[in-house]
């Protein structure tokens, strides 16, 4: 049934796309094109959730990770006048936040929800205290025109001409899917998230694997934050991640903790925003701006209400691992 549903979704979207493309090819491609920058930070943030939760750690601090990373990426990029250095610093900041979350949840065995919320509050506090006006980065990452793919009719203009972090992110998402389902690391990670004591008996170090995964996930959160600051927007404002880290959790759940499923869910989110924007520009509908702002949040709640209960999270999620426990 699951496979049929995904086929159904894919076929319907292709048919819908073909219909709209035949009606107005330019607008349709541009809408799908702009859906990608809307979707990418959500998709990357959802990968953070997938990596953590598959090993049994609930990460509600994605929002904070993205916020701090965007902050350091932007301000170091601005001070050093070098956005690549900014990107590096942003990713390293994510690593540090990931390590902090690991210490809090794995070593100290704190309640994982509280630990995540603390990270979010600390991120908001630090960034709003250190925030300064009148800084700017030399430029954002420039779009790349991919040689061969860019020339494919219909698909080419949609896929080509995005920034480097976008491509890096998409490659990572597919790579994570392969790693999670086709490699020993993936099998170990998933077993630690489902039944840590069995994994431990089989010789997997639960604590070490959780540390590694949560820390790498932090780096991905750093990438997502850096993307916002250095490629998508090119500025930093207080609290400018605007709940994306939480929406990402809904996307992760909607995608059944599967990287590709979450990517598809993120694209759906991005598309819904791109379509709304286009409708506003064309003045097809007159929606007050506030309702457009609301859209992703309402969608998040709706999706959770529909999919929760039908999906099964990793079994050991949220429970600190005690080696002695039988």
């Amino acid at each position, binding site marked *: 049934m699951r496979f049929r549903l995904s086929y159904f979704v894919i076929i319907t979207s292709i048919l819908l796309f073909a219909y709209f493309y035949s009606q107005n090819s330019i607008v349709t491609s541009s809408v799908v094109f702009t859906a990608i920058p809307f979707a990418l930070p959500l998709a990357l943030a959802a990968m953070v959730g997938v990596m953590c939760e598959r090993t049994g750690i609930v990460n509600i601090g994605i929002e904070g990770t993205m916020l701090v990373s965007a902050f350091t990426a932007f301000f170091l990029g601005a001070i050093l006048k070098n956005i690549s250095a900014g990107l590096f610093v942003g990713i390293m900041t994510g690593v540090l936040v990931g390590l902090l979350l690991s210490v809090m949840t794995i070593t100290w065995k704190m*309640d994982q929800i509280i630990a995540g919320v603390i990270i979010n509050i600390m991120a*908001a506090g630090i960034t709003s205290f250190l925030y300064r006006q009148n800084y700017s980065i030399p430029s954002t990452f420039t779009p790349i025109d991919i040689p061969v793919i860019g020339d494919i009719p219909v698909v080419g203009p949609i896929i080509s001409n995005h920034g480097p972090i976008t491509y890096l992110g998409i490659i990572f998402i597919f790579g994570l899917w392969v790693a999670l389902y086709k490699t020993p690391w993936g099998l170990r990670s998933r077993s630690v998230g489902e039944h840590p004591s069995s994994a431990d008996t089989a010789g997997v170090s639960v604590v070490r694997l959780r540390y590694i995964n949560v820390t790498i996930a932090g780096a991905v959160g750093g990438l997502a934050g850096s993307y916002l600051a250095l490629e998508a927007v090119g500025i930093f404002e207080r609290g400018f991640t605007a709940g994306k880290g939480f929406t990402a959790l809904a996307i992760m759940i909607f995608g059944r903790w599967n990287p590709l499923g979450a990517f598809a869910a993120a694209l759906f989110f991005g598309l819904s925003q791109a379509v709304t924007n286009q409708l506003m520009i064309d003045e097809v509908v007159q929606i007050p701006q506030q309702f457009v702002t609301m859209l992703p*949040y309402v969608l998040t709640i709706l999706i959770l209400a529909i999919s929760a209960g039908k999906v099964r999270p990793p079994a050991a999620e949220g429970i600190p691992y005690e080696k002695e426990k039988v």
Partner: protein
Amino acid sequence: MAMMQRVKLQSLTVPLLSLLIAFLFGSILIALQGSDPLLAYQVLFTKAFGSIEGIATTLAKATPLILSGLAVAICLRAGLFNIGAQGQLISGALASAWAGYSFVGLPFLIHIPLALLFGAFFGSLVALVAGLLKAYRGVHEVITTIMLNSIVIALADYLASTPFKEPDQPITRTPKIEESARIPDIFGLPFGFFIAIAISVAFWWLMRRTTTGFRIETIGRNRSAGWYAGISVKRVIISSMLLGGATAGIAGAVETLSITGRFEPAFNAGLGFDGITVALLARANPLGVIPAAILIGGMRGAASTMQFRAGVAPEIVDLLLALILFFVTAPILLRLLKRKEEGISLSSGWSN
């Protein structure tokens, strides 16, 4: 009796030490920015607690924080993390402002309670969405309440800019409330503060002396044990969210009716989020919320003076609060003190 005293003292050690360490960290950051941390803290505390007017301001600032702190604390007791106090508070603030300016000619004895009731009702309405989704669909309340915050903020902004807007005004805001809805000051102290204290005591009584409180406590400690004992988990989840939402709504209403006098989107910012810090600092104790809120209210109230006199950005308060929160909840201090104290724990995971 002596033991009781010792237990009370011990439960104070961690919050107080956390404060101390957070201020130490903060002073390093202030010094790094080239300002004088001692001067900054001195200004902060003399402004907040050093004079009668200062204390009155502090208590006025603390009033909504006591209530939003209670809104978080009561849900924590039930094992729910209500980080949506902000949205519930804004909903309550707007509803009470509407009740405050729409009803004309009521005596204040009816008008004030009516406006408060509007606040409580619309605050709990927002929380009800999260409660129902949690109880019937197993959707985690942290995500829904955060999303509801953003939805309510956008919705309130729309309402205050279009249907409820003050006519012939460029600013997005509602008309001023009627004089009969204004909560007065008593002996220079805001009367709202006493309302907040009364509600804290009521919650303390509810948790200590009633079966409802016992049910909430049991479900909060061990959901399945409570279920086996025959307590309806769904009902406890929904009723504690309703209570929390109503309290946050009253927080917004009291702020509107005694301080701001109308609804404007920029008002109330952060009051609900500070409630999280208040509740965790008080370890979800309804009476402990009062000193925690006074402390944070004092810092908030004096932040701008500190900026003026010591040149430190008022956002230092956000940073200090975050650090306090970290040290209060992280068990490092407890480890250092070599003491086993129960940390606050919620049932983690998405689907329980």
